[in-house]
């Protein structure tokens, strides 16, 4: 673990730290529920060209026709008619932190964004209730031709790029929630990295659900041209409400020949949020796509970051950590699809359940005909911290090519008594020992995170672990 983490400060209370919300002050808000009218209003608020409005409306038709999925977690309690699908807190965007409205600033001050800005990040886009309010792209990246904008701005100012790629990886018909997102999407990030450009500082954005019954439908599209590199980091928090919130994002990523993209998420929605996300990347010849996916919060998460390896030499790597406490179900995993020969993938999934929480690993390893000489390795380890908790594994392996090597290892364990005793025999209390063991369990993912995330994740786990033993 990063030694510097010890000296980085963050205050932890015993309650959910981010359980606060600003008094809602919104200049525009659609009526509750979803209708053709709602979708048209959203498009109009964004001044969208007809082609995007029509795209939304076609997606709405798809959404209304598709049935709810009958697998995964329990979504029967979401009442789609009482959700507000769009909300905009301010009419202007700011590129300078000092100009952002006070209460929004206050929220983000609490979340630490200005500090990050002072540090070494390339650019920060902060989302507050469906709209990207604050955006600051460092001039260096701008001069290299790197685009890091709100998707709405991309629609208006880079329509050709958007038309070329938007919806090509995840079409509206992919699944019901992709259709929903395609109809009502708002906010997210649009990133374009030109050929050969390596963005060496992570690009970062935060998301936040604030208004009661808000839906978050951010749409992210990342295009990495040949031999380029970018690392995008996404972390979310949300306040606690008594009725349920829905988060249904779509992330599409294209990684071209020789390029590399890493997408890191630490999701910490409060425990009333349904988090149903479709994330998919395509990797071309000799390209690498890496998903680093941490799921700590939410009532239910269904999320299976996917990599489609389209040409020889492509590589997919997915590292996933899920933590489920009382009342939580993390149905997470990964999908790797080998569409070309000489491709390789690894999936590492670590899950922890306690206090009746439930984690499920749901993963697909698929090798299409002709995709000879591929390798895939899946490791899924589950840690159950008590008798009430639950962990399941649903691996799907579909192999239709020659000379394919696929390994799948799974383990379920509880905290070893011997390990606990060993650490206690060195003076650690039982709680400290359990925390150390759990932190060690997720270390393969933590060491891949930017430092502040590593610190935040370990602290989140420590908070969750309070009183874990016994």
């Amino acid at each position: 673990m990063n030694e510097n983490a010890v000296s980085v400060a963050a205050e932890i209370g015993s309650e959910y730290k981010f359980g606060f919300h600003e008094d809602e002050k919104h200049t525009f808000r659609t009526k509750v529920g979803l209708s053709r009218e709602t979708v048209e209003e959203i498009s109009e608020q964004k001044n969208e060209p007809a082609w995007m409005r029509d795209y939304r409306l076609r997606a709405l038709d798809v959404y209304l026709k598709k049935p709810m999925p009958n697998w995964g977690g329990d979504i029967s309690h979401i009442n789609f008619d009482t959700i507000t699908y769009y909300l905009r807190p301010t009419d202007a965007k700011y590129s300078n932190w000092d100009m952002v409205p006070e209460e929004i600033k206050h929220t983000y001050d609490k979340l630490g964004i200005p500090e990050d800005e002072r540090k070494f990040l390339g650019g920060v886009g902060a989302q507050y209730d469906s709209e990207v309010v604050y955006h600051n792209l460092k001039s260096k990246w701008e001069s290299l031709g790197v685009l890091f904008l709100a998707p709405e701005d991309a629609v208006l100012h880079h329509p050709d790029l958007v038309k070329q790629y938007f919806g090509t990886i995840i079409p509206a018909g992919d699944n019901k929630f992709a259709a929903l997102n395609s109809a009502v999407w708002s906010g997210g990030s649009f990133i374009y990295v030109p050929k050969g450009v390596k963005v060496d500082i992570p690009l970062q954005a935060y998301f936040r659900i604030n208004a009661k019954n808000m839906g978050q439908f951010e749409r992210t599209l990342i295009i990495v041209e040949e031999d380029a590199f970018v690392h995008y980091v996404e972390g979310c928090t949300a306040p606690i409400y008594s009725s349920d919130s829905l988060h249904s994002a779509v992330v599409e990523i294209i990684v071209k020949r020789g390029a590399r993209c890493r997408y890191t998420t630490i999701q910490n929605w409060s425990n009333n949020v349904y988090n149903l996300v479709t994330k998919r990347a395509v990797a071309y010849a000799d390209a690498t796509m890496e998903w680093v996916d941490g799921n700590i919060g939410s009532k239910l998460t269904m999320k299976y970051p996917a990599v489609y390896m389209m040409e020889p030499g492509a590589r997919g790597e997915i590292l996933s950590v899920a933590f489920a406490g009382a009342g939580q179900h993390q149905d997470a995993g990964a999908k790797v699809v080998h569409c070309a020969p000489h491709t390789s993938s690894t999936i590492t999934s670590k899950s922890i359940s306690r206090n009746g929480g439930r984690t499920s690993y749901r993963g697909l390893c698929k090798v299409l005909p002709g995709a000879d000489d591929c390798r895939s390795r899946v490791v899924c380890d589950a840690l159950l911290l008590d008798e009430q908790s639950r962990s399941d594994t649903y691996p799907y392996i579909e192999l239709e090519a020659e000379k394919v090597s696929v390994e799948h290892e799974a383990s379920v364990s509880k905290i070893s008594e011997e390990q606990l005793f060993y650490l206690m025999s060195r003076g650690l209390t039982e709680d400290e020992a359990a925390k150390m063991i759990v932190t060690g369990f997720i270390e393969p993912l933590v060491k891949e995170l930017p430092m502040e995330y590593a610190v935040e994740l370990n602290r989140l786990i420590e908070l969750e672990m309070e009183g874990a033993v016994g």
Partner: protein
Amino acid sequence: MSEPLLAVEDLHVKVAKEPILKGVTFSMNRGEVHVLLGQNGSGKSTLAYAIVGHPNYTVTQGKVTFGGEDLLAMAPDERARKGIFLAFQAPIGVPGVSVANFLRTAYQARFHGGAAPATDKTGGQSSGFSVIAFQKKLMAAMKSLKIDPALATRYLNDGFSGGEKKQMEVLQMALLQPSLAIMDETDSGLDLDKLQTIGEGAARLAQEHNMGMLVITHYKRLLNYIKPSHVHLLMDGRIVVSMGPELVDELEAKGFDYIRNTYAKKSA
């Protein structure tokens, strides 16, 4: 007259309902090296585990004091913080936890009132702990024990050879500076040059910190480096013979039964 470092009185211990120790009595002080000999199954390790408080070992009768305090009333982590250390025979691995991170946490627990919690913004400095000073100590200790510094960034005991694990145990001893160090068959599985380094290292530590040492071993070799002051023979769950260092050679020459028949006190 001050209290002995460790006083064991009529200790009975069972493991999985099986009585192993049936009335062990002995005591020791700082600066002494006590060696515990006995055949396999005699209960040597049982005594060690009972002293450190392993949950699988149940004390059914008897008393143990540490510096005059009731040891059996303390949880294992408390005993460790008071200065008892057991170098395990087969140390377990803790994947994902680096040696350096683990040692620093244990060091803070022993000397700075506990592992620094996440809420401590000074990273423990408010209790006088300095990460940099600790790092220096760690490197110096590794150097003096001829331990490859690369081990510090590896995960604790994970994939370590038997010899490397034993080195870790003695490294921990060097940093935690216990007042009572129990070494449970530290020599088993060690090649000769490591045995020498570890033996000499342990002996040096014991002397520097005036430790009391309880050494459990089958072989004479370790005792070439760690000179015993007292030697006990454990048989049938009791200490049947206690003598000076000469017992080691006698045992080797004459065997367990002879020793027992010649020297053991006749009990009722």
